[in-house]
């Protein structure tokens, strides 16, 4: 039950259609007061052993995601997820589309937002604050989540090369066992508490969009070296209690292509602030992509 190519294709088309909202920015009247800057937490440069996002095949059969030691330069990330009140300022200015979920308590993270919505907000927020804000890469999200990093909960490994159903059945059982009652009600900031780095609410009922594209990689027999890979940026990685992959336009976790039993209750995001002394996102993306040196098909 993974992302299918039809959905991915639809995602790609949608990604062409929707950013028109962002284009509208140019017509906004100039705004005098700068928006207040969201509180951030600085994360020191580090190296993590990281289970790579995407789907992996060895000899045509699903394989466990390989882990790689990756070096992450220092970065600053929002202490809290982007809030509904802030998001609605963007909506009021016509730079963001209203979120799908509009709970009456306002002191909650914005939910019911797609990757495209998150992009539009980042652009608007950058303009309003005079800083450069962007979605974290999946790697940065993993580092910031610290001990709350979920990553891949279930192994994709084919159990019996001659019988694909063994894996399907095992996975189905694992998913059923991991199923918990859904709790989609948005919670006030701080409900799930800070992690060891002081970052609030990671791993709660809001899964967070990242800037990392979905990728399918064929590995060599060593289960490490990439033989080929196909990148699909119509689908992005979300991190939360477990990793999820969703088409860019999806706003409801239940409708997206989540691989595990209980789909994400809610989709939201937090942003990374690029300061002059921190490396650019392009540099980071290059680092991540360097893990499989292979020309990739771009959407």
């Amino acid at each position, binding site marked *: 039950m993974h992302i299918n190519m039809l959905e991915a294709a639809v995602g790609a088309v949608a990604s062409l259609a929707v950013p028109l909202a962002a284009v509208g920015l140019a017509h906004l009247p100039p705004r005098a007061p700068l928006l207040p800057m969201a509180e951030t937490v600085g994360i020191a440069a580090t190296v993590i052993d990281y289970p790579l996002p995407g789907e992996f095949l060895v000899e045509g059969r699903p394989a466990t995601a390989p882990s790689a030691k990756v070096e992450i330069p220092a970065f600053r990330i929002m202490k809290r997820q982007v809030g509904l009140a802030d998001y609605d300022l963007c909506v009021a200015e016509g730079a963001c589309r209203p979120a799908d979920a509009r709970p009456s308590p306002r002191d909650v993270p914005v939910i019911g937002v797609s990757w495209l919505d998150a992009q539009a907000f980042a652009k608007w927020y950058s303009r309003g604050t005079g800083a450069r804000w962007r979605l974290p890469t999946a790697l940065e999200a993993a580092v910031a989540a610290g001990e709350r990093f979920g990553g891949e909960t279930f192994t994709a490994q084919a159990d019996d090369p001659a019988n*694909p*159903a063994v894996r399907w*059945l095992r996975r189905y059982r694992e998913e059923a066992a991991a199923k918990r009652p859904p709790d989609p009600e948005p919670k006030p900031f701080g409900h799930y508490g800070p992690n060891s780095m002081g970052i609030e609410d990671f791993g709660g009922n809001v899964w967070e969009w990242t800037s990392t594209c979905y990728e399918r990689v064929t590995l060599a027999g060593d289960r490490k070296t990439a033989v080929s890979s196909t990148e699909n940026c119509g689908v992005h990685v979300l991190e939360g209690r477990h990793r999820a992959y969703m088409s860019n336009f999806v706003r409801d976790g239940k409708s997206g292509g989540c691989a595990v039993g209980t789909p994400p209750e809610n989709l939201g995001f937090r942003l990374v602030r690029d300061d002059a002394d921190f490396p650019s996102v392009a540099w980071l993306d290059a680092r991540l992509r360097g893990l499989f040196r292979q020309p990739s098909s771009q959407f």
Partner: protein
Amino acid sequence: MFTRRQALLGAAAATVLAGALPKLASAAPVTEAEIAALPREKVVLVKPPFVHAHEQVATSGPKVVEFTMPIEEKKVVIDDEGTEFQAMTFNGSMPGPMMVVHEGDYVELTLINPYTNTMPHNIDFHAATGALGGGALTLINPGEQVKLRFKATRTGTFVYHCAPEGAMIPWHVVSGMSGTIMVLPRDGLKNEKGEALRYDKIFYIGENDFYVPRDEEGNYKTYESHGESYADTVQVMRGLIPTHVVFNGAKGSLTGDNAMKSKVGETVLIVHSQANRDTRPHLIGGHGDYVWEEGKFANPPAKDLETWFIRGGSAGAALYTFLQPGIYAYVNHNLIEAVELGATAHFMVEGEWRDDLMKQVAAPGPITTN
């Protein structure tokens, strides 16, 4: 005037009619004393999707089969958003439990409406003859019980449902009050050639269409009692668009830990019942080897169906032997109803994979350009 053609048609129709008329129905009435002399069997009903133990081929003559069903009005959760619903149930389950008898048996049902309920209820058996299917003889108030006996004269899978009166009828049915009785031929199921068909397992799926009112913000409303929910619910019902289309009373009730289990080589009989609204079951990755769409075993089964049609107010039966292991989704193939409204169940099937039936010849990878 009587044309030759009409005469022929008339004769043909008469022949068909005579052939179709069950022997037992056309036979002389059996006396009360004769019925009293028949052996009796008490059956304990089980919760769907399971069905009480029964013989596929009757090993003895007709008997009186006794069933007891209490009616239970209760609040249940019908989806994964925690939507609460004021349900009315036969025996506490949606659908009501399946009863199995053989043609020529007498069904003797004790229907109980406990004091704790708030409404009168009854039961209309589509398998029964006369008195609105028994509805006219079984209307009971809270604190009452009634005993009905009817002769199972026609074979097949048949809906039963509550049918109190007027506007109460559809409301009670879409609140959960329906179930199925299966009347087997005494010599069991047969294919179109009259050869015996058997099943290793039987699964019973009741499809419910629910009509849950929403508040101004679009959230489902919950009510403290059935009475309070009535007026709003009827408004939604009259729009004819259900908010939920689910199997066995709740979205996801036949998935995960409750998925139906089978094995390669095993033959399952899937009985699908819908008391109110048309539906179209489909087993994704499988078929219906033999399907009684209308559910009536006097008609030969259709073969190799991809999807079968169950008319609202009827139950059908599909026989299938699993050939390949894996997870099968059993859906209402209006896929909007399956995925968005909830009409999806799962089969977990163990066994050996057959590459000759299906194989991924080349795994997904970059598009080759040569």
